[in-house]
């Protein structure tokens, strides 16, 4: 187990005050399903396609019940053709539908790369701003499910590298619902990564309609001594590590960028100017990855405020192994994040 659920007590966000009365506990998966259902009710152009998305509701059961309400015209089971149905989504998005495609495992995005990178991401720019591609690709990331090297990767850095795409990485049920609704309403191709180990994670979600803008980071925990920037389920890991740090008298601020593009650089930089130390935790590979980019943003923006080098913690640079004791070595844990943050704070 990489992490346990942490409901941060200190939040900077103002959203809590208005919605407290109607807060419910939902799982991360349920919040995703609710976002899709609400958007499909609101806009008849929204449709879903992917493998086993209809009656099966995906292997993770995230979409259970949607086909019963919206029918097979709007929840379309496809053959096992990731490139094919992603390409069809691009064309459908250009011509009046708002498709949400489901790529069951993030590892399979490799099969869709031409359609996402050369087509979806480029159509708007290449056409001089005339065609738009309002589509969402939902997919997963995250290791430690004992699924080995082709079902465990966190490849969100790949899409974050490409102009024309937006990339979303929710870390809580609340964020998942609000960000997905925004992604569906966006006029651009948006890739939405869900950590498959988080589907059962519970959290407060208001019953009222709400959205969360893309490109706005959230301070998940306020602190003074070190900034831990974390993405997706690594936010939960970071919050656990922050609790451990607190016992040592170290006050950690945990920031979730929520989207790697657009990236809320200012919030990250301001936090590090305050704390003077930064650790970036991301489950993608550490090399050339999201953590590397965020570390560079911080180094460029807060260099003269730093008391220690910016540190990255990512997945080990190995294919994810199957054997549990080996797999567990490859991903950041509360302990490894704690150790890295403490290391930054105890440098002379």
């Amino acid at each position, binding site marked *: 187990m990489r992490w346990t659920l942490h409901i941060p007590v200190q939040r900077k966000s103002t959203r809590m005050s208005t919605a407290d009365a109607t807060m419910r506990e939902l799982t991360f998966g349920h919040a995703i399903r609710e976002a899709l259902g609400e958007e499909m009710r609101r806009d008849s152009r929204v449709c879903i396609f992917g493998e086993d998305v209809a009656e099966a509701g995906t292997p993770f059961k995230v979409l259970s019940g949607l086909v019963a309400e919206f029918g097979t015209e709007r929840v379309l089971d496809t053959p096992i053709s990731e*490139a*094919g149905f992603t390409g069809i989504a691009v*064309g459908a998005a250009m011509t009046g539908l708002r498709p949400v495609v489901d790529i069951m495992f993030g590892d399979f995005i490799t099969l869709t790369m031409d359609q996402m990178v050369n*087509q979806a991401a480029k159509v*708007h720019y*290449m*056409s001089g701003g005339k065609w738009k591609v309002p589509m969402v690709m939902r997919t997963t990331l995250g290791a430690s499910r004992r699924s080995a090297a082709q079902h465990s990767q966190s490849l969100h850095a790949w899409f974050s590298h490409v102009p024309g795409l937006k990339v979303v990485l929710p870390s809580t049920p609340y964020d998942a619902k609000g960000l997905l609704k925004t992604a569906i309403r966006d006029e651009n191709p948006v890739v939405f990564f869900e950590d498959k180990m988080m589907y059962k994670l519970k959290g407060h979600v208001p019953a009222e309609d709400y959205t969360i803008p893309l490109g706005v980071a959230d301070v998940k925990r306020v602190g003074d001594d070190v900034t831990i920037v974390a993405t997706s389920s690594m936010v939960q890991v970071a919050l656990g590590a922050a609790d451990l740090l607190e016992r040592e008298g170290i006050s950690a601020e945990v920031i979730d960028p929520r989207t790697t593009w657009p990236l809320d650089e200012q919030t990250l930089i301001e936090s590090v100017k305050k704390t003077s130390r930064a650790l970036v935790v991301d489950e993608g590979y550490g090399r050339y990855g999201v953590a590397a980019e965020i570390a560079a943003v911080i180094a460029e923006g807060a260099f003269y405020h730093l008391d220690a080098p910016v540190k990255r913690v990512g997945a080990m640079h190995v294919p994810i192994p199957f054997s549990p004791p080996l797999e567990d070595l490859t991903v950041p844990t509360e302990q490894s994040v704690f150790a890295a943050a403490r290391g930054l704070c105890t440098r002379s």
Partner: protein
Amino acid sequence: MTIATSEPAASPAVDLERWVEMYRRMVSIRLFEEQVNELYTRALMPGLAHLYIGEEAVAVGICAALRSDDYITSTHRGHGHCLAKGASPDRMFAELLGKEAGYCRGKGGSMHIADPATGNLGANAIVAGSVGIATGAALSAKRLGLGRVAVCFFGEGALGQGLLYEVMNLAQLWQLPVIYVCENNLYNEYTHYSETTAGEIAARPAAFGILTETVDGQDVRAVYGTAKRLIDRARRGGGTAFLLCNTYRYHGHHVGDINREYYRSKQEEQHWRSERDPIKMLADWMIEQGLTSVDALTRIDSEVKSEIEKAVKFALDAPYPSPEEVDQDVYG
């Protein structure tokens, strides 16, 4: 069995204006492309271009059977498709020269011309890159009840790409109004297609149960007649079709491909130019039928020539985009 070889379906009874218009369009594409070659040779055009000369009857015959709100997707060899669907030569040239007046504000260039006003979803520089887009447009047309049809143009080189088979499978399963138009100009770049293509081309879509027809791509009447039937069928809800058009690329893979004898002979090229030219074939037929005269066609030729010359001048004189354009329209 769904494989058929079509005879020219149209008769002289089809009104003269239609054939004259197709003649004019083919001449327009021919002269446009000759100007492109000229611009390249005179070093006035950035980059390269892939000429459609020799294949005009395919784009013109098919687009003549489409409504203006029907969709097309095109290829790296796409100028002919865009013009046949209604693009105007001046803004096409402007795009080829990277000028702001171009269809894509100069950001797309020769291989990416797109125009919502004429249903052009875009030319595409990835071989088979647009087959998903065309199929998706057909899905929208069906779902939204628009009565539109999507035509997906691609060369025989695209038969090597897996994506084509994925989307043909889906189109047939979902009975989408999309026509896959395979332009077999015999060469995947510099390699004869027989060296890259196992089995029969028409057997591929037929394996999915897709209505498949083969037509002489140099005969615009045959192309039009067959395309009209397949397009009307798709519009009525009859589903997907595949049209194999046998044609020939007179020029090289791109404007810089001058010495071609290592992959094909001059005699072969000459044979197609003199015996199988689509413009000459239509002209000869119209004259033979007494529908028009040499003089009337010559008049059209010179009208088109002057239109193309004006269009080139427009593009040469047009300004480049301003530097502030560089990061505009990355996101919508």
